[in-house]
């Protein structure tokens, strides 16, 4: 495990342009928050959360992609590195990315709250759990597919499922609107408003944990 973490650490250090990209986007977001005239609530940070969760997914995918491109993955299969350890290490990296980017994102609502002189721990936690939860959800969906089919095919499958889910949520939302608000829609609205943030993060973390053994199983079935 330590060897794999070191390898990924070296890899990320060799890609400063990616970290610079994240820094640049962070600055742009910060600037947009500071200069906005509109009153911004913490819950309104969710589009940025979505963006950050995509970063997390992208970075996690990049590590796998590099492993495939360099044939390091094939090599790992010949070493004492067990399949479960390899997959676990990638999950650990995804967790690190999620928390790292989540923390970056909390800077923005923190600035907003301080500007409005209305700091509240509940809002702060909400701003942290939304991006982390979304990252967990994306990774939970993408990793099993990627470990089974490789990064290219896996990412395509992920996109298809992601779009289907988005369409499903949209249609479900419309249906809920027509029926004067269904349970699911009410739950999602409550999540967005931060009333049930804890449930949201628990569900996301549960899915993240559940997808780990699925990914290990998928990886074991993969041929090289």
């Amino acid at each position, binding site marked *: 495990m330590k*060897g794999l973490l070191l390898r990924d650490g070296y890899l990320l250090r060799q890609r400063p342009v990616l970290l610079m990209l994240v820094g640049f986007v962070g600055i742009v977001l910060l600037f947009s928050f500071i200069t906005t005239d509109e009153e911004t609530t913490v819950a309104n940070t969710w589009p940025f959360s979505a963006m950050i969760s995509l970063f997390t997914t992208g970075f996690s995918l990049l590590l796998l992609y*590099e492993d495939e491109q*360099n044939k390091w993955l094939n090599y790992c299969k010949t070493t004492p590195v067990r399949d479960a350890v390899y997959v676990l290490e990638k999950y650990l990296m995804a967790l690190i990315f999620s928390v790292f980017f989540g923390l970056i994102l909390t800077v923005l609502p923190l600035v907003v709250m301080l500007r409005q002189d209305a700091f509240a721990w509940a809002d702060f936690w909400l701003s942290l759990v939304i991006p982390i939860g979304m990252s967990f959800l994306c990774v939970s969906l993408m990793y099993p597919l990627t470990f089974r089919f490789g990064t290219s095919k896996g990412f395509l499958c992920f996109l298809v499922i992601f779009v289907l889910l988005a369409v499903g949520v949209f249609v479900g939302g419309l249906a809920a609107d027509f029926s004067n608000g269904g349970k699911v829609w009410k739950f999602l609205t409550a999540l967005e408003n931060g009333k049930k943030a804890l449930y949201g993060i628990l569900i996301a973390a549960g899915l993240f944990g559940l997808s780990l053994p699925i990914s290990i199983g998928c990886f074991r079935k993969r041929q090289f």
Partner: protein
Amino acid sequence: MNAIEIKGLCKSFKEFEIDNVDLTLPGGCVVGLVGENGAGKSTTIKLILNMIFKDSGSIRVLGKDNVTELDSVKEEIGVVFDESYFPPSLTPVKLGNIMKHIYRNWDMQRYQDYLQQFSLPEKRPIGKLSRGMKMKLAITVAMSHHAKLLILDEATSGLDPVVRDDVIDILTDFTREEDHSILISSHIVSDLEKLCDYIAFMHKGKMMLFEEKDRLYEQYGVIHCTEKELQSIPSDAVIGKKIGSYGAEAIALRSAVPHGITVYPVDIEKLFIFMIRERE
């Protein structure tokens, strides 16, 4: 104990199949897996390492089943593929730092000694090393954790003759220890001729021949004769033949060649080429 033991190995793909392959690598020996491109050498190696799943047959590596127990012997196996698989941005020193956490038996002193012996620059990124250097580095890594079995897939292809000779020397040194075995695949037969105790010929997914190298030299010979003289040799004793306007050239069992026809020593490459031509 046999280092590798394959019995009745089968694997089907859409347009290719490994068909009932048997192969034994006795402990302390070197087996050369020879075959043209696409003969199934790399597939066989991947099947041994369980990177591809077999359809049927059995494979034992260092006495363990390759599906259920391979993890327990991976510490004792070193694998070298034909292309570099180490991250190009890493230096050999950083690579050593990573590998010491991957192999329990990693010997950093030995690794550094090899780096010096092979004149590998310790702090140059792997991506900037020549192909020959990358191959030496891969072999260095494979030998720095006290492996008992080396599996090399086309490790010498694409290298210039001098580097190839260096690599063969490194591998020869490795086999000086009694319990060290090597399975090496290549289509450059001359390399294998220097190194191997046994030769295995693969063609279109089938094992055409598996024999001790010295026995091949003893058994077979090259003859140059007329077509009529060739017909006097039993057809099952002729491995392959080439008939032209100048006469016939053939490889045949020495014992079946009549007196009066000179038999020249055979080289493995010629034996392989004639064998394949005869099949086709």
